[in-house]
């Protein structure tokens, strides 16, 4: 019953999202006023309910900070409702433009695919974790609530509405991270909650500030804010960017996303690809025209840039596959924010490309790791040695997913390349060029060694038969297909969705030169046909054991050591903990980015005064 419902709902959402593409892909943003007069009151009541629930949870688990933060936020909202809400004249409206459409496609297609995958995953999860209480009803309800809130967030023009959906995503992530109910998961759920509530308070302050500026609610709409060329708009833009930074888990708030890894893997996939963190970067990219060229925008971009560099470096020292993925997400979000903060039209183009490609490749990778974890009982990369022999299909898909994250000519690399070209021309761009040059090569290291681990052909292991649930495998296949397909269709996607959006907002647009597009497509085809070469290496070759320095060795790599002792060899990747250790770099990043956040705050206060 539940399975059927989830599948049907997923199919409907995917169809509707895809049909949006057909009905509204061209032209300017379309606005749809919402005639419901009571919507404001209803939203206020819902927000109060959420606050009450969170305060209850805060008391229940004795988390004072959460209670205080919710109380502050609720007070701000009550104050707004009492003083300003009556003065609002214009009805809030929904809108759709190409950027919302891209976000909707990511949420609608990738989000629901993850939901369907979770059906199989959660059954096995509960079989493997008998201690965890089965709350799947709540789980799937929250997953779909999460997706709905994301749709609301990207389609709302009124900041009040955006805020409402924003808070729902905070609530959903809190519930999902704490799903297993263990002490650790509760602790991390509250960590995520508290950091996001801090962002939510900044959001609420932005709303109050705008109400003071114009009590009739003119500036409560995103359109009005972006259209007005007033200096004060920078203040809400900075506040919203702060909220975005907390939600997108940039430094100094990165720890919540790493902590969120305790949740079941589909939740991580959801948080990283199509919900939560994408909401954070969405709002910053939306306000990028306001930030562009300002010193505050530059500071926000720097926070993104340092996050990219340091999070990539930390990923080198991680063995846990989910943590590597988490740090790589944090890094990429940092890069997106760096693009949006500097905010030239080329960089915004690059930022949207990054959002799109990251969502696809990262969801694929998380689901692969989840599948492998359930099959081999570990998420340690060292335990994935020889995966190509044990779980060939999943290993190949994981391989493509990783390639999608950092190799030419796949999407993420195209986006980084575009960003590099755009930074060269931007003001202060050299800092970011340097960050990209070093950070980009760092990512090569941690992805490649992971790839190397899974493709090493271990002669001592054999294939696990009947291993992966059919439906899960199908979802993985679809996502793998999407990774390749979107790279192939990249010129079309860019020309029909991203370029028109950038053109509308900035008056200029950009694209890659025809030569480069041709070359990339040719490279991709080359990569796709190259596996066929395996057919050509035939019977005339002899297979021998690996070279072991002349010492007699067994297939399992045991040396004949001195004194007749057999010594087992084990192959373990480099992790460079002394150079790229998590603790030290995280401390540096937190301090640096916290300083930058403060600086942006002080500058914004300067604008107010």
């Amino acid at each position: 019953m539940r399975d059927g419902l989830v599948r049907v709902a997923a199919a409907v959402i995917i169809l509707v999202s895809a049909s949006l593409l057909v009905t509204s892909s061209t032209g300017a943003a379309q606005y749809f006023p919402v005639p419901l007069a009571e919507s404001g009151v209803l939203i206020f009541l819902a927000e109060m309910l959420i606050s009450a629930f969170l305060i209850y949870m805060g008391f229940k688990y004795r988390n004072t900070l959460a209670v205080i933060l919710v109380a502050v936020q609720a007070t701000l909202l009550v104050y707004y409702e009492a003083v300003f809400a009556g003065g609002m004249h214009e009805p809030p409206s929904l809108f759709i433009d190409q950027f919302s459409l891209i976000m909707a496609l990511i949420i609608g297609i990738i989000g629901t695919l993850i939901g369907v995958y979770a059906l199989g995953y959660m059954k096995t999860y509960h079989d493997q974790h008998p201690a965890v209480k089965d709350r799947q009803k709540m789980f799937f309800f929250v997953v779909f609530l999460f997706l709905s809130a994301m749709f609301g967030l990207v389609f709302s023009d009124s900041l009040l509405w955006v805020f409402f959906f924003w808070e729902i995503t905070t609530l959903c992530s809190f519930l999902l991270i704490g799903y297993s109910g263990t002490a650790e998961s509760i602790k991390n759920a509250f960590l995520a909650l508290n950091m996001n509530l801090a962002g939510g308070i900044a959001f609420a302050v932005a709303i109050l500030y705008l109400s003071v500026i114009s009590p009739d609610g003119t500036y409560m709409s995103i359109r009005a804010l972006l259209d007005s060329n007033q200096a004060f708009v920078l203040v809400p833009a900075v506040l919203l960017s702060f909220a975005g930074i907390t939600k997108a888990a940039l430094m100094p708030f990165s720890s919540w996303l790493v902590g969120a890894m305790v949740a079941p893997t589909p939740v991580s996939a959801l948080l990283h690809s199509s919900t939560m963190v994408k909401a954070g970067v969405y709002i910053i990219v939306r306000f990028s025209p306001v930030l562009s060229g300002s010193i505050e925008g530059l500071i926000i971009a720097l926070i993104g840039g340092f996050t990219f560099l340091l999070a990539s470096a930390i990923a080198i020292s991680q063995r846990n596959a989910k943590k590597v993925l988490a740090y790589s997400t944090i890094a990429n979000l940092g890069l997106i924010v760096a693009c949006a903060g500097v905010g030239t039209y080329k960089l915004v183009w690059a930022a949207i490309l990054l959002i799109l490609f990251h969502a696809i490749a990262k969801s694929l990778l998380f689901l692969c790791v989840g599948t492998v974890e359930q099959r081999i009982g570990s998420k340690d990369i060292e335990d994935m040695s020889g995966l190509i022999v044990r779980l060939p299909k999943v290993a190949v898909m994981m391989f493509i997913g990783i390639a999608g994250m950092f190799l030419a000519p796949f999407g993420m690399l195209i986006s980084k390349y575009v960003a590099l070209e755009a930074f060269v021309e931007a003001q202060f761009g050299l800092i970011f060029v340097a960050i990209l040059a070093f950070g980009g090569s760092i990512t090569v290291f941690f992805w490649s060694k992971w790839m190397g681990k899974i493709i090493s052909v271990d002669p001592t292991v054999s294939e696990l038969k009947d291993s992966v649930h059919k439906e899960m495998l199908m979802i993985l296949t679809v996502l793998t297909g999407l990774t390749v397909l979107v790279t192939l269709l990249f010129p079309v996607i860019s020309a029909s969705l991203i370029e028109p959006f950038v053109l509308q907002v900035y008056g200029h647009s950009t694209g890659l030169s025809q030569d480069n597009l041709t070359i990339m497509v040719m490279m991709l085809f080359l990569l796709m046909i190259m596996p066929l070469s395996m057919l050509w290496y035939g019977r005339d070759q002899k297979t021998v054991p690996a070279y072991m320095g002349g010492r007699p060795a067994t297939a399992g790599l045991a040396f004949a050591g001195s004194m007749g002792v057999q010594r087992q060899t084990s192959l373990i990747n480099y992790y460079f903990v002394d150079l790229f250790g998590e603790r030290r770099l995280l401390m540096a990043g937190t301090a640096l980015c916290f300083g930058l956040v403060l600086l942006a705050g002080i500058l914004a206060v300067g604008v107010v005064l």
Partner: protein
Amino acid sequence: MISLTSAILYLVLAPFIGGLVYGIDRKITARMQGRVGPPVLQPFYDLAKLFQKEKVVVTPSQNFYVLGYLVFILVSGSLFFAGGDMLLVIFAFTLAHIFLVLGAYSSFSPYSFVGAERELVQIIAYEPMIILSAVGMYLVTKSFFVSDIVALQAPLILYLPGVFLGFLMVLTIKLRKSPYDLSTSHHAHQELVKGVTTDFSGPALARIELAHWYETVFLLGFIYLFFAWSLPIAILAIIVTFLLEILIDNTFARMKWQFTLKSSWLIAAMLGLVNLGILYYLGNGGIS
């Protein structure tokens, strides 16, 4: 903008030039060490012999990765000589080396494995500097296309002295010369045996060697860009550079990977970034 003819010329001629360069290299190295050395054509004999050897593999899949290495070296080199986008060239070049590394990983053996890890360290050591070189050329010529950079009538080297020195440093890594020949080298049986190439033999090893020749010609072409305004000076510069690399190779002992990584990043940051900073300052009429 993209010229097919020069790409084809590269594909045909590069192996001969590359082999010859290494023949001369071996001769000069031998003279520096007071030996006579093999004939100049020795690398060609070696390669021909490798191709005739029995096909022996540890795992069949390694053939695929070796082919990937060769193919993408060819792609990046021909794209470069055709006048294509420098950043794409660099990315294809990286992709090629990832294939080599994966080939070493695929054999699941200790020597290859350590070689692969070290090769990766080398990749992250040299890549920032190569990207910064391309950016430096962009700042002078306002284009990432090799065809536009070659067409510059002014001496690029005068604008990019720091970048050029930084590039020389990573060239030592790329040509697999001491003190940075960490992952594999032509010289003595070392602690790593032959690093990344340990478990390749016969035709597969021949393909790797061939790819390395192509790669060398591409890298020498990169030096050419700095002196492109005058052909004789450019050729002289390439010769001097290569002789310098041979000298360095024969006078330094191998260093640890930590030193490779730190020194190359430091050089990239100091020489490369400072050079770019100055250009950036001049090019944008001052940073406001």
